[in-house]
């Protein structure tokens, strides 16, 4: 009963967000402000909201994706429904707060609530150790990044004497202060959007429920970073150093994440790394510092929300029906050609999603990625080094993206022709491959509650590319297509041979996690032990010594308590005599 009520509330709230976006579409930018209070003597804090084109775009994205996720969850989540739905709704509400707020602190509140919600949702299956660890990791890493973020807010707010976002950027500003403030904000963005060097929490967040992954990756959590830079774009454009740093971070991240995705052996992990990589492409577009770059980044954000949400929902169906999204397990069914036949809707929608991700011409990802490339090319043509770096990185990433998309698609849905029925690359890893005959007949499509959102998002993944008006630069389109084919061909040929070489370096994701373990976790644990020891042996020693002194003193004093009235009386008389002598001495 409660669960049903919460589901109604959740879906209703998401639809309300969509409705708000629809109503606000085309309306002039507006700003409102409600009751506020002074902070200190200089700053006025109020609940200030604004709506403009960016808000409408984000509201639409958030609303549609969260509606899909809420509906999908009805068919997907089986336990702790009420709390799950409530937290997802809160998550959406927090993102809406971030999107519509016109005050840095209000934005921070939404930002932090999202962090808390992501922690709770990733740890939804808290019985599992990896879910708990992933939730803790996500929380700690984003929190680590949020501290500089908060100080960035302070720097900018104090610098401009206002925390109102619309008023930021007005008035003179010391360039160094601006750079410092935006850099601090950038740290928070990097943490929230899982860019290098804080990238490792996102793949580890995969034990969470798949619809939550879809929500986090498509609309709310990681998109908030992109949104923030787009919102404060005027400030970031002024701070050239910050933009350069952002470009470097984005380029390193997109190549790093794409290469990790090429070697991952679990559907959701591939998708997670691909999210990191695609977000980096958005940041790359933003880092160009031009209006076209920002436009391209937001366009890519929108299309990415559609196809990445779709892909995660598809992965959720696989998880739900098969019980695992690991290549090894899926291959057991695929060897009998079961997955495609039994789950046709999932197959088709996932194919379209992957096509959009890979940048197949005609699908959404193709257009948005091309617009980023085009913006980068225009900057590079003006002789900007950053432009060139971004251009090359995005092109290489496009090729790598095609590689891992094709690899994923072929390996999970198709029998290997060279080794039909025989042991393929992934069967090598599976000791149970021949012992356990999976019953393919039990496999069936997910319920319509789950399929309907997927189909809706498929439409988006296929058609969103045309909403921006088709203005293709044919040369760039040709180049990216060729690059995508260049990436796809090796994947096809490897699959055809039944081989899946995974370099150890990539498979271990460049050893970042062990390095962090050694660099940060172990010293922090050591420090924690030191602190505990210090508390116990130093501070505690004083406390215990105080207690023991009291006990010893009382043991001494109780000797005076003889119980003999004459002793007491003697003491009293002695005291009287002493007082009399004292009075005589003082009086004389």
């Amino acid at each position, binding site marked *: 009963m409660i669960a049903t009520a919460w589901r109604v509330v959740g879906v209703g709230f998401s639809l309300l967000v969509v409705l708000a976006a629809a109503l606000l579409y085309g309306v002039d930018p507006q700003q409102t402000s409600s009751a506020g209070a002074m902070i200190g003597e200089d700053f006025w804090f109020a609940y200030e909201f604004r709506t403009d084109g960016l808000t409408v775009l984000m509201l639409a994205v958030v609303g549609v994706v969260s509606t899909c996720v809420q509906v999908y969850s009805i068919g997907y989540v089986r336990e702790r429904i009420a709390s799950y739905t409530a937290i997802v709704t809160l998550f959406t509400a927090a993102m809406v707060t971030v999107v519509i707020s016109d005050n840095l602190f209000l934005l921070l509140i939404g930002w932090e609530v999202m962090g808390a919600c992501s922690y709770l949702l990733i740890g939804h299956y808290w019985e599992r150790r990896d879910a708990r660890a992933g939730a803790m990791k996500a929380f700690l890493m984003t929190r680590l990044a949020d501290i500089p973020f908060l100080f960035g807010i302070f720097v900018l707010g104090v610098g401009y004497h206002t925390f109102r976002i619309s008023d930021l950027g007005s008035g003179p500003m010391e360039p160094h202060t601006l750079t410092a403030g935006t850099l601090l904000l950038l740290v928070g963005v990097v943490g929230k959007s899982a860019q290098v060097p804080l990238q490792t929490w996102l793949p580890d967040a995969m034990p969470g429920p798949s619809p939550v992954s879809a929500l986090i990756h498509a609309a709310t959590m990681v998109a908030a970073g992109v949104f923030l830079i787009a919102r404060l774009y005027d400030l970031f454009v002024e701070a050239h150093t910050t933009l350069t740093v952002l470009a470097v971070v984005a380029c390193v991240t997109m190549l790093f994440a794409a290469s990790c995705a090429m070697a991952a052996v679990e559907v959701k992990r591939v998708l997670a790394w691909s999210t990191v990589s695609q977000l980096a492409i958005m940041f790359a577009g933003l880092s160009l510092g031009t209006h076209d770059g920002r436009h391209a980044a937001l366009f890519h954000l929108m299309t990415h929300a559609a196809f990445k949400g779709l892909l995660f929902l598809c992965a959720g169906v696989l998880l739900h029906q098969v019980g695992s999204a690991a290549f090894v397990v899926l291959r057991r069914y695929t060897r009998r050609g079961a997955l495609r036949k039994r789950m046709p809707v999932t197959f088709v929608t996932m194919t379209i999603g992957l096509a959009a991700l890979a940048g197949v011409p005609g699908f959404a990802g193709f257009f948005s990625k091309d617009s980023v490339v085009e913006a980068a090319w225009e900057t590079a043509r003006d002789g900007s080094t950053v432009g060139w770096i971004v251009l090359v990185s995005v092109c290489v990433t496009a090729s790598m993206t095609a590689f891992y998309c094709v690899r994923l698609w072929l390996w999970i849905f198709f029998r290997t022709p060279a080794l039909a029925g025989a042991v393929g690359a992934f069967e090598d890893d599976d000791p149970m491959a021949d012992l356990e005959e999976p019953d393919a007949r039990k496999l069936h499509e997910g319920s319509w509650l789950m399929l309907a959102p997927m189909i809706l998002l498929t439409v988006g993944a296929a058609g969103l590319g045309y909403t921006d008006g088709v203005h293709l630069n044919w040369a760039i389109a040709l180049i990216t297509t060729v690059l995508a084919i260049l990436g796809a061909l090796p994947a096809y040929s490897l699959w055809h041979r039944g081989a899946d070489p995974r370099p150890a370096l990539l498979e271990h994701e460049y050893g970042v996690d062990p390095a962090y373990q050694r660099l940060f976790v172990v010293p922090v644990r050591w420090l924690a032990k030191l602190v505990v020891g210090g508390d116990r042996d130093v501070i505690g020693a004083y406390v215990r010594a105080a207690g023991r002194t009291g006990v010893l003193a009382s043991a001494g004093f*109780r000797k005076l*308590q*003889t*119980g*003999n*009235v*004459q002793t007491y*009386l*003697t003491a009293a*008389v002695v005291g009287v005599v002493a007082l009399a002598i004292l009075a005589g001495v003082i009086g004389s």
Partner: protein
Amino acid sequence: MPLILPLLLAVVLFCIGVYGVLARRNLITLLMSFELMLNAVNLNLVAFDAWHADGLATGQTLAVFVITLAAAEIGLGLAIVLLLFRGHGHVDADAARDLVES
């Protein structure tokens, strides 16, 4: 008669009483020492009355009152001592240590 004579006698009696209170073991002798101290006080009162001679006989009246009080005090004190004896079987001040912190 010099006033100092009865006063010094009172001081001596009082201090003998103090010594008795502080040093004797038997609780009944303790009470006797109290009586000595009270008598010293009475001596003071009477001596000052004779010296002051205000016509109201203040000191003498007060001395009579103190004697009455002493009677009441010894009555109660002996009742307590007997109670102690009934409970403990002795009237030794040193041995009566129920107040001791153990």
